[in-house]
């Protein structure tokens, strides 16, 4: 019995804090999504009106479109690049530890600062370089182009996220038994089939968690976008988080954007669950 108390004491403070600062405000948000609350003043219940309006809101739909495009492309790129880097860093190469530390650096830098630095690079350095080399496509700031700005955001997001995902893959790779590769060598397996038949199935659980975490993080992208484009040009790179923040806190649409947030919460939960189901089925049990 005493041990139970000790464990409870460990858990309760975290639970209380989590509830006060996370669960309770979230529930409040759900509550207000059924009202016409502006963020202040009086309000009335309006039922599901806000929810119906979100579905007819072209701005919200545009934001969903951009966010999914960005999140899917970034998730795929991050996972491909992380696996490659992790395999490189797992091999017996010189300076392995130094390289590992270097590749992890982006993760400990603040997203905002990194984004502002990249904004400078895109605005000044890349166009200067493009002009010097006479390359038309590079001589303008891509963040100023509605069709290309999202690529700039993908570059920054991927550059930064690769660090953490590489770390997870490295952990995965260290669980693979070297003897398996030796056996494969004796059987005359090529590099590709060694990866596809041995490495990948064995690190599949890490692949699953990386896909889910990366996708969820990118769906909630905010900082990179604020710093790089502010959602522009026009509304070309307005993510859903940014729209909720803008509308909810800057435009007196607190209740309406709460409804948007509730919908988005459900969407993210559904996507994560579906991803887990599909990917876990493919894992080697």
């Amino acid at each position, binding site marked *: 019995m005493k041990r139970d108390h000790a464990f409870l004491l460990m858990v309760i403070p975290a639970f209380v804090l989590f509830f006060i*600062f996370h669960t309770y*405000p*979230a529930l409040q*948000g759900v509550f207000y999504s059924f009202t016409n609350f502006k963020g202040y003043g009086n309000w009335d219940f309006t039922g599901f009106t806000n929810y119906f*309006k979100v579905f007819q809101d072209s701005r919200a739909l545009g934001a969903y479109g951009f966010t999914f495009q960005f999140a899917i492309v970034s998730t795929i790129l991050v996972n491909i690049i992380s696996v490659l880097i992790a395999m490189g860093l797992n091999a017996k190469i010189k300076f392995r530890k130094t390289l590992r530390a270097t590749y992890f650096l982006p993760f400990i830098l603040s997203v905002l600062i990194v984004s502002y630095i990249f904004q400078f690079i895109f605005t000044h350095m890349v166009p200067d370089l493009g002009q010097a080399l006479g390359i038309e496509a590079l001589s303008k700031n891509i963040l*100023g182009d509605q069709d290309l700005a999202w690529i700039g955001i993908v570059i920054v997001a991927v550059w930064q996220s690769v660090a953490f995902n590489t770390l997870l893959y490295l952990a995965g790779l260290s669980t693979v038994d070297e003897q398996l590769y030796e056996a494969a060598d004796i059987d005359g397996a090529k590099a590709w089939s060694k990866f596809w038949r041995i490495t990948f199935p064995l690190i599949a659980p890490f692949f699953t968690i990386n896909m889910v975490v990366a996708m969820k993080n990118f769906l909630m992208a905010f900082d990179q976008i604020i710093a790089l484009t502010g959602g522009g040009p*026009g509304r070309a790179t307005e993510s859903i988080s940014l729209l909720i923040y803008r509308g909810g*806190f800057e435009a007196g649409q607190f209740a309406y954007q709460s409804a948007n947030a509730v919908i988005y919460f459900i969407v993210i939960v559904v996507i994560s669950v579906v991803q887990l189901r599909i990917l876990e089925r493919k894992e080697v049990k």
Partner: protein
Amino acid sequence: MKKHYGKFLVTAGTAAAILAGCGGGNDDGSVTLELFSNKSESIDTYQALIDQFEEENPDINVELEAPPEAETVLRTRLTKNDMPDILSIGGNATYGEFAREGVLRDLSDTDLLSQVQSSYVDMLGQLAGPDTEGSFGVPYATNANHVIYNKAKVEELGIEIPKTWDEFIAALETAKEAGEVPLYLTLQEAWTGMAIWNGVAGNIVPEDFAEMKNNGEASFVEDYDEVAEKMLQLLEYGHSDNFGIGYGDGNSAFANGEGVFYIQGNWAIPEIREANPDVELGTFALPSSNNPEENNLVSGVDVALAISESTEHPEEAEKFLSFMLEQEVAEQYMNEQSAFSAVEGVYQEDEVFDGIREYFENDRLTSFQDHYYPAGMGVENLVLDMLINGNKTEGLEVIDSEWEAAQNR
């Protein structure tokens, strides 16, 4: 998203704790007022004036709060019913909303309003809307949306200051032929496009457009057609990367001799001078009409002083406002901020504004159109969208429908 709720609660909580600690009269009988300002540019000026005020009134303490993203901060604090005692905010749609919602104290019965120009009092009244009785803000500093020009270049090119739209286009044409960048655009930041939008619309669109639009008597497609047309025309006179350069970079580029004309407000002038103290600048009102008599200067209330309805020390807050309206104090503020004064008898003397002074003296002023738009529609991004795609009618249709959507959210 959940992250933001969390942050917001913490912020509100801290703010409440601070207020609880220092508000409500201290033990020694002194009173602490919180002054909330939405301009980071004026922090030093305010701080100096506050020191002076505190010296004159030893029993009043004024704490200045000028956070970034000030309007957002103010709204979140409003959510918690935790308003600062004195507000120094812009005369825009947010001010109108505050005045309508009864957040601000009615100042009609004080002698504060008699010390400022009545046309700006009316302008604030219009923001609050026709159904709101009373005056809730004292217009203090005002601004101007104008064309800034590089004096050396204009003289070198032999350009005369244009009085009509055609003359302006001809001047841009002359600059273009001489191989200069005629008009420096900074459209990576969407709001800078609104300086042009407001400048052009101020003389073309009826001043009560917003009211007419809400009554279904006007629309962007009809009334802004010419505005959109002229903005698209101006794009032809930009530089090679109109949508890739932002405000800060634009100010320093213009200061260092790139561009002959630059459409911005007076707030950009201190920034340009900071980037190059030797640059010689001039200003004129954007002549968006071909009839010189119709061309007025777009001007708005840059800083309105207000007292919150919930303050516990209305008398002390009024005392501070009277102090701000004193001639010497107002002069110091206007000079340091390159702002124009709404206070009677105080004038902006900087010679850079020689070209627009007559508009103030003869009351040839018109307001910023977008101050009357619904706060939530994000019109700057819609305008930018139209400029990028060059689709005038389609772009204006979107603005029309977004207005309606913002109204019933």
